[in-house]
Protein backbone atom coordinates (compact mmCIF):
# COMPACT_ATOMS: atom_id res chain seq x y z
CA UNK A 1 0.00 0.00 0.00
CA UNK A 2 2.79 2.39 0.95
CA UNK A 3 4.70 1.48 -2.17
CA UNK A 4 1.59 2.04 -4.35
CA UNK A 5 1.07 5.46 -2.77
CA UNK A 6 4.65 6.35 -3.47
CA UNK A 7 4.38 5.29 -7.12
CA UNK A 8 1.20 7.34 -7.66
CA UNK A 9 2.69 10.45 -6.06
CA UNK A 10 5.88 9.97 -8.06
CA UNK A 11 3.88 9.76 -11.30
CA UNK A 12 2.18 13.02 -10.34
CA UNK A 13 5.50 14.72 -9.73
CA UNK A 14 6.94 13.46 -13.03
CA UNK A 15 3.85 14.72 -14.87
CA UNK A 16 4.15 18.14 -13.21
CA UNK A 17 7.82 18.40 -14.07
CA UNK A 18 7.22 17.43 -17.70
CA UNK A 19 4.29 19.83 -18.10
CA UNK A 20 6.08 22.74 -16.42
CA UNK A 21 9.15 22.15 -18.54
CA UNK A 22 7.03 22.04 -21.71
CA UNK A 23 5.47 25.38 -20.81
CA UNK A 24 8.89 26.80 -19.87
CA UNK A 25 10.30 25.90 -23.28
CA UNK A 26 7.13 27.17 -25.03
CA UNK A 27 6.18 23.81 -26.48
CA UNK A 28 2.89 23.89 -24.55
CA UNK A 29 0.68 26.91 -24.08
CA UNK A 30 -0.44 27.86 -20.60
CA UNK A 31 -4.14 27.51 -21.43
CA UNK A 32 -3.68 23.90 -22.49
CA UNK A 33 -1.32 23.18 -19.61
CA UNK A 34 -3.80 24.04 -16.85
CA UNK A 35 -5.79 20.81 -16.98
CA UNK A 36 -2.60 18.73 -17.18
CA UNK A 37 -1.21 20.55 -14.16
CA UNK A 38 -4.43 19.80 -12.30
CA UNK A 39 -4.08 16.13 -13.25
CA UNK A 40 -0.49 16.09 -11.97
CA UNK A 41 -1.46 17.72 -8.68
CA UNK A 42 -4.39 15.33 -8.38
CA UNK A 43 -2.08 12.31 -8.78
CA UNK A 44 0.40 13.79 -6.31
CA UNK A 45 -2.10 14.27 -3.51
CA UNK A 46 -4.19 11.21 -4.36
CA UNK A 47 -2.51 8.99 -1.70
CA UNK A 48 -3.75 11.35 1.01
CA UNK A 49 -7.31 10.60 0.06
CA UNK A 50 -7.04 6.85 -0.26
CA UNK A 51 -8.36 6.26 3.29
CA UNK A 52 -11.30 8.54 2.46
CA UNK A 53 -11.95 6.80 -0.82
CA UNK A 54 -13.78 3.80 0.65
CA UNK A 55 -16.16 6.08 2.52
CA UNK A 56 -16.84 8.27 -0.51
CA UNK A 57 -17.40 5.21 -2.70
CA UNK A 58 -19.90 3.65 -0.35
CA UNK A 59 -21.62 7.00 0.18
CA UNK A 60 -22.04 7.34 -3.59
CA UNK A 61 -23.23 3.74 -3.85
CA UNK A 62 -20.15 2.20 -5.50
CA UNK A 63 -19.85 -1.43 -4.45
CA UNK A 64 -16.27 -1.60 -5.69
CA UNK A 65 -14.01 1.29 -4.68
CA UNK A 66 -11.58 1.20 -7.64
CA UNK A 67 -14.57 1.74 -9.96
CA UNK A 68 -14.94 5.22 -8.47
CA UNK A 69 -11.27 5.92 -9.20
CA UNK A 70 -11.64 4.73 -12.77
CA UNK A 71 -14.73 6.85 -13.25
CA UNK A 72 -12.94 9.96 -11.96
CA UNK A 73 -10.02 9.23 -14.27
CA UNK A 74 -12.30 8.84 -17.28
CA UNK A 75 -14.11 12.09 -16.48
CA UNK A 76 -10.79 13.89 -16.23
CA UNK A 77 -9.64 12.50 -19.58
CA UNK A 78 -12.95 13.39 -21.22
CA UNK A 79 -12.56 16.98 -20.02
CA UNK A 80 -9.09 17.16 -21.52
CA UNK A 81 -10.23 15.71 -24.85
CA UNK A 82 -13.26 17.97 -24.95
CA UNK A 83 -11.05 21.01 -24.51
CA UNK A 84 -8.97 19.78 -27.47
CA UNK A 85 -12.09 19.31 -29.62
CA UNK A 86 -13.12 22.89 -28.86
CA UNK A 87 -9.75 24.23 -29.87
CA UNK A 88 -9.68 22.10 -33.04
CA UNK A 89 -13.03 23.58 -34.04
CA UNK A 90 -11.72 27.09 -33.54
CA UNK A 91 -8.44 26.31 -35.29
CA UNK A 92 -10.06 24.74 -38.35
CA UNK A 93 -12.35 27.76 -38.72
CA UNK A 94 -9.32 30.05 -38.53
CA UNK A 95 -7.33 27.92 -40.97
CA UNK A 96 -10.24 28.00 -43.41
CA UNK A 97 -10.52 31.80 -43.33
CA UNK A 98 -6.75 32.22 -43.61
CA UNK A 99 -6.54 29.79 -46.54
CA UNK A 100 -9.32 31.61 -48.38
CA UNK A 101 -7.79 35.02 -47.73
CA UNK A 102 -4.38 33.76 -48.84
CA UNK A 103 -5.80 32.41 -52.09
CA UNK A 104 -7.71 35.63 -52.80
CA UNK A 105 -4.74 37.85 -51.96
CA UNK A 106 -2.42 35.78 -54.14
CA UNK A 107 -4.88 36.18 -57.00
CA UNK A 108 -5.01 39.98 -56.43
CA UNK A 109 -1.22 40.04 -56.44
CA UNK A 110 -1.06 38.15 -59.73
CA UNK A 111 -3.55 40.58 -61.28
CA UNK A 112 -1.48 43.55 -60.07
CA UNK A 113 1.70 41.95 -61.42
CA UNK A 114 0.01 41.40 -64.79
CA UNK A 115 -1.13 45.03 -64.89
CA UNK A 116 2.31 46.32 -63.91
CA UNK A 117 3.86 44.22 -66.64
CA UNK A 118 1.38 45.53 -69.21
CA UNK A 119 1.93 49.22 -68.30
CA UNK A 120 5.19 49.57 -66.40
CA UNK A 121 5.39 52.78 -64.34
CA UNK A 122 7.51 55.53 -65.90
CA UNK A 123 11.07 55.55 -64.61
CA UNK A 124 12.00 58.52 -62.43
CA UNK A 125 15.37 60.18 -63.03
CA UNK A 126 17.51 60.54 -59.91
CA UNK A 127 17.17 64.08 -58.52
CA UNK A 128 13.96 64.78 -60.45
CA UNK A 129 11.06 66.41 -58.59
CA UNK A 130 7.91 64.34 -58.42
CA UNK A 131 4.53 65.98 -57.97
CA UNK A 132 2.62 64.46 -55.09
CA UNK A 133 -1.11 63.88 -55.23
CA UNK A 134 -3.25 65.65 -52.59
CA UNK A 135 -3.57 62.44 -50.60
CA UNK A 136 0.16 61.84 -50.62
CA UNK A 137 0.79 65.47 -49.53
CA UNK A 138 -1.51 65.08 -46.55
CA UNK A 139 0.22 61.83 -45.64
CA UNK A 140 3.64 63.44 -46.07
CA UNK A 141 2.74 66.50 -43.96
CA UNK A 142 1.48 64.28 -41.20
CA UNK A 143 5.03 63.01 -40.80
CA UNK A 144 6.21 59.52 -39.94
CA UNK A 145 3.72 57.46 -38.01
Amino acid sequence: MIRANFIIALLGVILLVIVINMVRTRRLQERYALLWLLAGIGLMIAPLFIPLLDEIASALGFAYTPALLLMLAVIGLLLLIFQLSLSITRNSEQVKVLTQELGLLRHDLEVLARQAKANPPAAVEPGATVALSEEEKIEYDAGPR
Partner: protein
Amino acid sequence: MSFSTYPRRLIIMPAFNEAANLPRVIPEVQQAAPGYDLVVIDDGSTDGTARIAVDLGAEVVSLPVNLGYGGAVQTGFRYAVQHGYDLGVVIDADGQHDPAGIQVLADAVTCGGADVAIGSRFRGQLKYRVPWVKRIGMAVFGWTASRITGRQVTDPTSGFQALNAEAMRFFAADNYPVDYPDADTLLILHYAGFKVVEAPMTVRDRLSGNSRLHGGWKPIYYVAKMWLAIAMVVLRQKTNIHPRRTAV
Protein backbone atom coordinates in the same frame (compact mmCIF):
# COMPACT_ATOMS: atom_id res chain seq x y z
CA MET B 1 -30.87 37.59 -72.50
CA SER B 2 -30.80 40.85 -70.61
CA PHE B 3 -27.89 41.85 -68.41
CA SER B 4 -29.44 45.24 -67.59
CA THR B 5 -30.50 44.48 -64.01
CA TYR B 6 -27.64 42.11 -63.17
CA PRO B 7 -24.81 43.41 -65.35
CA ARG B 8 -21.87 41.71 -63.66
CA ARG B 9 -22.17 37.94 -63.59
CA LEU B 10 -19.70 35.36 -62.40
CA ILE B 11 -19.41 31.62 -62.79
CA ILE B 12 -17.79 29.98 -59.78
CA MET B 13 -16.18 26.62 -60.49
CA PRO B 14 -14.64 24.80 -57.53
CA ALA B 15 -12.05 22.30 -58.75
CA PHE B 16 -10.01 19.70 -56.92
CA ASN B 17 -7.72 17.69 -59.21
CA GLU B 18 -9.87 18.20 -62.30
CA ALA B 19 -7.05 18.72 -64.79
CA ALA B 20 -8.44 15.91 -66.95
CA ASN B 21 -11.92 17.46 -67.17
CA LEU B 22 -11.20 21.20 -67.43
CA PRO B 23 -10.11 21.27 -71.11
CA ARG B 24 -13.59 20.09 -72.06
CA VAL B 25 -15.67 21.70 -69.31
CA ILE B 26 -14.33 25.28 -69.38
CA PRO B 27 -14.84 25.94 -73.12
CA GLU B 28 -18.29 24.36 -72.89
CA VAL B 29 -19.23 26.66 -70.01
CA GLN B 30 -17.77 29.74 -71.72
CA GLN B 31 -19.76 28.95 -74.83
CA ALA B 32 -23.01 28.35 -72.95
CA ALA B 33 -22.72 31.55 -70.90
CA PRO B 34 -21.33 34.45 -72.93
CA GLY B 35 -20.83 37.64 -70.95
CA TYR B 36 -20.08 35.79 -67.73
CA ASP B 37 -16.71 35.98 -66.02
CA LEU B 38 -15.31 32.67 -64.85
CA VAL B 39 -13.34 32.04 -61.67
CA VAL B 40 -11.93 28.61 -60.94
CA ILE B 41 -11.26 27.95 -57.27
CA ASP B 42 -8.39 25.49 -57.26
CA ASP B 43 -8.85 23.68 -53.95
CA GLY B 44 -5.25 22.68 -53.35
CA SER B 45 -4.99 20.47 -56.43
CA THR B 46 -1.79 18.56 -57.14
CA ASP B 47 -2.36 17.83 -60.84
CA GLY B 48 -1.84 21.24 -62.44
CA THR B 49 -5.53 22.20 -62.36
CA ALA B 50 -4.65 25.88 -61.81
CA ARG B 51 -2.26 26.14 -64.76
CA ILE B 52 -4.71 24.49 -67.14
CA ALA B 53 -7.52 26.80 -66.00
CA VAL B 54 -5.33 29.88 -66.52
CA ASP B 55 -4.36 28.67 -70.00
CA LEU B 56 -8.05 28.26 -70.83
CA GLY B 57 -8.67 31.90 -69.94
CA ALA B 58 -10.23 31.60 -66.50
CA GLU B 59 -9.36 33.69 -63.46
CA VAL B 60 -7.91 31.29 -60.91
CA VAL B 61 -7.83 31.51 -57.14
CA SER B 62 -5.52 28.83 -55.80
CA LEU B 63 -5.99 27.72 -52.22
CA PRO B 64 -2.66 26.62 -50.71
CA VAL B 65 -4.25 23.62 -48.96
CA ASN B 66 -7.32 21.51 -49.68
CA LEU B 67 -10.33 22.90 -47.80
CA GLY B 68 -13.12 20.77 -49.21
CA TYR B 69 -15.99 21.58 -51.55
CA GLY B 70 -17.82 24.06 -49.32
CA GLY B 71 -14.65 25.92 -48.41
CA ALA B 72 -13.80 26.33 -52.10
CA VAL B 73 -17.28 27.51 -53.06
CA GLN B 74 -17.27 29.98 -50.17
CA THR B 75 -13.97 31.35 -51.49
CA GLY B 76 -15.81 31.95 -54.76
CA PHE B 77 -18.52 33.88 -52.90
CA ARG B 78 -15.89 36.00 -51.19
CA TYR B 79 -14.28 36.65 -54.57
CA ALA B 80 -17.66 37.68 -56.02
CA VAL B 81 -18.38 40.00 -53.09
CA GLN B 82 -14.92 41.60 -53.26
CA HIS B 83 -15.24 42.22 -56.98
CA GLY B 84 -18.82 43.49 -56.83
CA TYR B 85 -20.62 40.82 -58.84
CA ASP B 86 -24.41 40.96 -59.03
CA LEU B 87 -24.98 37.31 -59.76
CA GLY B 88 -23.00 34.14 -59.17
CA VAL B 89 -23.54 30.69 -60.65
CA VAL B 90 -21.79 27.73 -59.02
CA ILE B 91 -21.09 24.80 -61.33
CA ASP B 92 -19.05 21.63 -60.84
CA ALA B 93 -15.78 21.23 -62.72
CA ASP B 94 -16.28 17.53 -63.47
CA GLY B 95 -18.73 18.07 -66.31
CA GLN B 96 -21.74 16.58 -64.53
CA HIS B 97 -23.72 19.80 -64.73
CA ASP B 98 -24.95 20.60 -68.21
CA PRO B 99 -23.92 24.26 -68.75
CA ALA B 100 -27.19 24.90 -70.58
CA GLY B 101 -28.64 25.12 -67.07
CA ILE B 102 -26.66 28.29 -66.30
CA GLN B 103 -29.15 30.45 -68.19
CA VAL B 104 -32.13 28.68 -66.64
CA LEU B 105 -30.83 29.22 -63.13
CA ALA B 106 -29.75 32.80 -63.80
CA ASP B 107 -33.19 33.63 -65.21
CA ALA B 108 -34.86 32.23 -62.11
CA VAL B 109 -32.94 34.85 -60.09
CA THR B 110 -32.95 37.78 -62.49
CA CYS B 111 -36.50 37.39 -63.78
CA GLY B 112 -38.13 34.99 -61.32
CA GLY B 113 -37.45 37.08 -58.21
CA ALA B 114 -35.58 34.33 -56.38
CA ASP B 115 -32.52 35.02 -54.23
CA VAL B 116 -31.15 31.53 -54.84
CA ALA B 117 -32.02 29.10 -57.65
CA ILE B 118 -30.98 25.48 -57.28
CA GLY B 119 -30.71 23.06 -60.14
CA SER B 120 -32.63 19.88 -59.35
CA ARG B 121 -31.64 16.70 -61.09
CA PHE B 122 -35.05 15.24 -60.25
CA ARG B 123 -36.95 17.93 -62.09
CA GLY B 124 -34.79 17.71 -65.17
CA GLN B 125 -33.17 14.87 -67.01
CA LEU B 126 -31.08 12.33 -65.21
CA LYS B 127 -28.42 10.88 -67.42
CA TYR B 128 -26.49 8.95 -64.82
CA ARG B 129 -27.09 6.43 -62.05
CA VAL B 130 -27.43 7.83 -58.53
CA PRO B 131 -26.05 5.39 -55.93
CA TRP B 132 -28.88 4.06 -53.76
CA VAL B 133 -27.43 5.41 -50.51
CA LYS B 134 -27.28 8.87 -51.98
CA ARG B 135 -30.78 8.51 -53.41
CA ILE B 136 -32.28 7.58 -50.04
CA GLY B 137 -30.37 10.37 -48.29
CA MET B 138 -31.57 12.95 -50.77
CA ALA B 139 -35.16 11.75 -50.51
CA VAL B 140 -35.19 11.81 -46.70
CA PHE B 141 -33.42 15.12 -46.26
CA GLY B 142 -35.31 16.68 -49.16
CA TRP B 143 -38.56 15.63 -47.52
CA THR B 144 -37.41 17.10 -44.19
CA ALA B 145 -36.40 20.38 -45.81
CA SER B 146 -39.71 20.48 -47.71
CA ARG B 147 -41.67 20.01 -44.50
CA ILE B 148 -39.83 22.78 -42.66
CA THR B 149 -39.66 25.32 -45.48
CA GLY B 150 -43.15 24.56 -46.82
CA ARG B 151 -41.75 24.39 -50.34
CA GLN B 152 -40.89 21.31 -52.34
CA VAL B 153 -37.21 20.44 -52.17
CA THR B 154 -36.33 17.53 -54.45
CA ASP B 155 -32.55 17.85 -54.57
CA PRO B 156 -30.98 19.33 -51.44
CA THR B 157 -27.41 18.29 -52.32
CA SER B 158 -27.29 19.96 -55.71
CA GLY B 159 -24.17 22.04 -56.22
CA PHE B 160 -25.55 23.75 -59.35
CA GLN B 161 -26.87 27.06 -58.05
CA ALA B 162 -27.37 30.70 -58.97
CA LEU B 163 -27.28 33.34 -56.22
CA ASN B 164 -27.81 37.06 -56.14
CA ALA B 165 -25.36 39.44 -54.47
CA GLU B 166 -27.15 39.45 -51.13
CA ALA B 167 -27.18 35.66 -50.86
CA MET B 168 -23.48 35.55 -51.79
CA ARG B 169 -22.68 38.14 -49.09
CA PHE B 170 -24.63 36.00 -46.63
CA PHE B 171 -22.53 32.94 -47.48
CA ALA B 172 -19.26 34.85 -47.78
CA ALA B 173 -19.58 36.03 -44.18
CA ASP B 174 -20.44 32.74 -42.56
CA ASN B 175 -23.26 30.22 -42.65
CA TYR B 176 -21.62 27.96 -45.22
CA PRO B 177 -20.30 24.50 -44.34
CA VAL B 178 -16.70 23.71 -45.19
CA ASP B 179 -17.52 20.20 -46.46
CA TYR B 180 -20.80 19.84 -48.38
CA PRO B 181 -23.74 22.22 -48.35
CA ASP B 182 -26.95 20.26 -48.04
CA ALA B 183 -30.47 20.46 -46.67
CA ASP B 184 -29.18 22.30 -43.59
CA THR B 185 -27.84 25.11 -45.79
CA LEU B 186 -31.25 25.42 -47.46
CA LEU B 187 -32.87 25.72 -44.04
CA ILE B 188 -30.41 28.45 -43.03
CA LEU B 189 -31.36 30.36 -46.18
CA HIS B 190 -35.04 29.84 -45.50
CA TYR B 191 -34.83 31.07 -41.90
CA ALA B 192 -32.75 34.08 -42.96
CA GLY B 193 -35.59 35.12 -45.24
CA PHE B 194 -34.09 34.27 -48.64
CA LYS B 195 -36.34 33.05 -51.41
CA VAL B 196 -35.06 29.74 -52.77
CA VAL B 197 -36.48 28.06 -55.86
CA GLU B 198 -35.63 24.88 -57.71
CA ALA B 199 -35.15 24.77 -61.46
CA PRO B 200 -34.80 21.68 -63.63
CA MET B 201 -31.35 20.70 -64.81
CA THR B 202 -29.64 17.87 -66.57
CA VAL B 203 -27.02 15.86 -64.77
CA ARG B 204 -24.63 13.66 -66.72
CA ASP B 205 -22.05 11.10 -65.75
CA ARG B 206 -18.80 12.72 -64.73
CA LEU B 207 -16.13 12.71 -67.38
CA SER B 208 -13.24 11.39 -65.34
CA GLY B 209 -12.40 10.59 -61.74
CA ASN B 210 -14.39 9.56 -58.69
CA SER B 211 -17.32 11.16 -56.96
CA ARG B 212 -17.90 11.61 -53.25
CA LEU B 213 -20.02 9.46 -50.92
CA HIS B 214 -18.85 6.06 -52.06
CA GLY B 215 -18.24 3.03 -49.96
CA GLY B 216 -17.20 2.25 -46.40
CA TRP B 217 -18.46 4.29 -43.49
CA LYS B 218 -19.02 7.50 -45.44
CA PRO B 219 -22.77 7.06 -46.05
CA ILE B 220 -23.38 6.34 -42.35
CA TYR B 221 -21.29 9.32 -41.30
CA TYR B 222 -23.15 11.45 -43.83
CA VAL B 223 -26.60 10.51 -42.58
CA ALA B 224 -25.67 11.05 -38.93
CA LYS B 225 -23.99 14.38 -39.66
CA MET B 226 -26.96 15.60 -41.68
CA TRP B 227 -29.44 14.85 -38.91
CA LEU B 228 -27.24 16.67 -36.44
CA ALA B 229 -26.79 19.63 -38.79
CA ILE B 230 -30.53 19.92 -39.50
CA ALA B 231 -31.42 19.60 -35.82
CA MET B 232 -28.88 22.29 -34.96
CA VAL B 233 -30.20 24.73 -37.56
CA VAL B 234 -33.72 24.28 -36.21
CA LEU B 235 -32.51 24.55 -32.62
CA ARG B 236 -30.58 27.75 -33.33
CA GLN B 237 -33.67 29.23 -34.93
CA LYS B 238 -35.81 28.29 -31.91
CA THR B 239 -33.27 29.76 -29.49
CA ASN B 240 -32.67 32.92 -31.55
CA ILE B 241 -29.03 32.31 -32.44
CA HIS B 242 -29.36 34.02 -35.79
CA PRO B 243 -26.77 33.86 -38.52
CA ARG B 244 -24.81 36.94 -39.46
CA ARG B 245 -25.95 38.66 -42.60
CA THR B 246 -23.08 41.04 -43.26
CA ALA B 247 -19.72 40.21 -44.76
CA VAL B 248 -16.61 40.11 -42.61
